[in-house]
């Protein structure tokens, strides 16, 4: 049984123009100790997905799912009180913005310890000892003194390390990391990434890693699910996805990444033309077809999820065919 099992998850947000279908029926699962990467550009629904899993959706959002189970517990029917017993204890989250994710008014020690005191009923001292251990483990020096410091006394990279330590305080089964490295500069990004991977393997925690970066970041995962316009359009073990991408969007994303040694210096970087369709109202057919170089009349119909090799699926009419020739540009008269 997977640790997290999601079938046909939908998140709808009422907006002025109607209903925004932020997440449009996605399926995925995460096994114990596994790292799943959710990749997609801004507005593809990946953050809404993570908030839905945590039960932290905005109050107006509507969530429906055929199945949303965490370790056999049905999250859709769980009361808010029982849900908060899980949050921070068995599933925790690392956010994108380390600069604002910590409360400026309390010491790091206070914020690190309050969760484990609440969930595990441990004493303040035991909690502090665990906090010191984890701060050292995430590579923060003078951990004991840090407990009495305030967030504003730390750099962004350090704060993100504190957030990681905080997420590990109760030894959760699942950590959801929502673009944890996006707000950091590149060298720090690599450090944080390596740290997360190490800790994930050391503690056997399952991780859902959310990112827009199919280049470096997604490669650390065991499996990758690519999201587009509120849907998972491709899902595969990491090597298979990179070796044999089945969806034109995935191929587009991969071709956007400059490859060292291959991409000539000074050459133009690839980009996918066009914009993401509006998710207000119903989306008919393949959501990517207006940007797809291989679009055919068939794409007016909603594509099925096609299975490729082991555990590799793509939502494209042509996923299991050899790549069709690009559509001929219409002749201009």
């Amino acid at each position, binding site marked *: 049984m997977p640790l997290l099992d999601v079938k046909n998850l939908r998140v709808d947000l009422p907006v002025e123009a109607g209903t925004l279908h932020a997440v449009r029926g996605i399926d995925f699962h995460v096994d114990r100790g596994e790292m799943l990467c959710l990749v997609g550009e801004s507005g593809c629904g990946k953050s809404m997905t993570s908030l839905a899993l945590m039960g932290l959706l905005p109050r107006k959002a509507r969530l429906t799912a055929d199945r949303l189970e965490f370790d056999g517990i049905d999250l859709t029917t769980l009361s808010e009180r029982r849900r908060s017993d899980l949050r921070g204890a068995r599933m925790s989250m690392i956010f994108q913005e380390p600069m*604002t*994710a910590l409360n400026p008014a309390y*010491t790091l020690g206070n914020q690190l310890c*309050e969760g484990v005191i*609440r969930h595990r009923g441990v004493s303040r001292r035991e909690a502090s000892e665990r906090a010191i251990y984890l701060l050292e483990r995430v590579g923060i020096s003078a951990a004991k003194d840090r407990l009495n410091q305030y967030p504003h006394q730390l750099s962004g990279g350090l704060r993100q390390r504190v957030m990681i330590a905080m997420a590990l305080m109760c030894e959760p089964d699942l950590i959801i990391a929502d673009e944890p490295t996006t707000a950091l500069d590149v060298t720090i990004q690599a450090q944080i990434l390596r740290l997360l991977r190490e800790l994930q393997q050391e503690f056997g925690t399952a991780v859902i890693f959310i990112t827009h970066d199919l280049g470096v970041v997604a490669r650390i995962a065991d499996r990758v699910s690519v999201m587009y316009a509120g849907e998972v359009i491709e899902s595969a073990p990491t090597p298979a996805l990179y070796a044999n991408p089945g969806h034109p969007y995935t191929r587009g994303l991969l071709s956007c990444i400059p490859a060292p040694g291959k991409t000539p210096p000074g050459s133009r970087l690839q980009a996918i033309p066009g914009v993401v369709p509006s998710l207000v109202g119903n989306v008919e057919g393949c959501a990517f077809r207006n940007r797809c170089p291989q679009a055919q009349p068939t794409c007016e119909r909603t594509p099925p999820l096609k299975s490729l090799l082991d555990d590799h699926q793509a939502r494209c009419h042509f996923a299991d065919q050899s790549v069709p020739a690009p559509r001929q540009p219409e002749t201009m008269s």
Partner: protein
Amino acid sequence: MGTFIIRRILVAISVALTISIVSFMLLHLSGDLATSIAGPEATAEQVEQIRIDYGLDRPIVNQYLDWLGGALTFDFGRSYYYQSTVVDLIVDRMPITLTLGGLALALAVSIAIPLGVLAALKRDTWVDRLALLFAVVGQAMPSFWFGLTLIVIFAVTLQWLPAAGSDGWQHFVLPAIALGYYATPAMMRLTRTGMLEVLEADYIRTARAKGLRTGSVIFKHALRNAIIPVVALAAVELGFMLGGSVVIESVFSLNGLGQLAWDAISRNDYPVVQAVVLIIALFYIVLTLLADVANAALDPRIRTR
């Protein structure tokens, strides 16, 4: 924190000195003191006599230094009107004003903050609208009118509480309500705005992601940050209530500092006016200092600045 407080105290002292100079000068610039003390029927000789008796013929700097030296030892001279020293008058009146102001602030804070939090949590519901109505009424209604209404209802019609005087706690109930209601709306709305802003903050989401109980999220994580501007406002409002409660003191015939100042001004009783102005200014300075220290205690970022 220590150096922060010392720095603030030094600033406070220099502000106090500046105010003492300004208040002293203003009185001397407002006209010839000897003439106004002597009254309209006095002869020129009498005016000159008064000028010499009160030391008004000396250079103004000397007069100020003398007055300041006295003020430092709580000697503000004698009242021209009452047969007692200024200090005795103030010591007599101050407890009434302090009691009234303290009660009114306590009342205002204990209504404004819970109501502001509630309005923010129940944003755009009838609870929020009712709180807004309560605030608008409080801001729009003149305090003397509200005070008189309270007297009519509770003192005259129901006869539950006395209408005037300052002999027992019962006498402070109605004036504290009248003055407190006046101070409530601004604090309530600031609390509400602060809570709405803070509840959207990333660290509130973090707190919820930790699975903390709702009470802990709202009161520990949100209110602590939302309350910071309210503390400064409460200090200013208390200063206002201590110095500017003349209207309420008149309506309820409380002989507080406001009443004393008003009487002293209308009687050209300059030593009293100067002393009261200085003391009210000192209230403000001390309260601002306390608010700064409270803010620093609430917000660690201020301490290191």
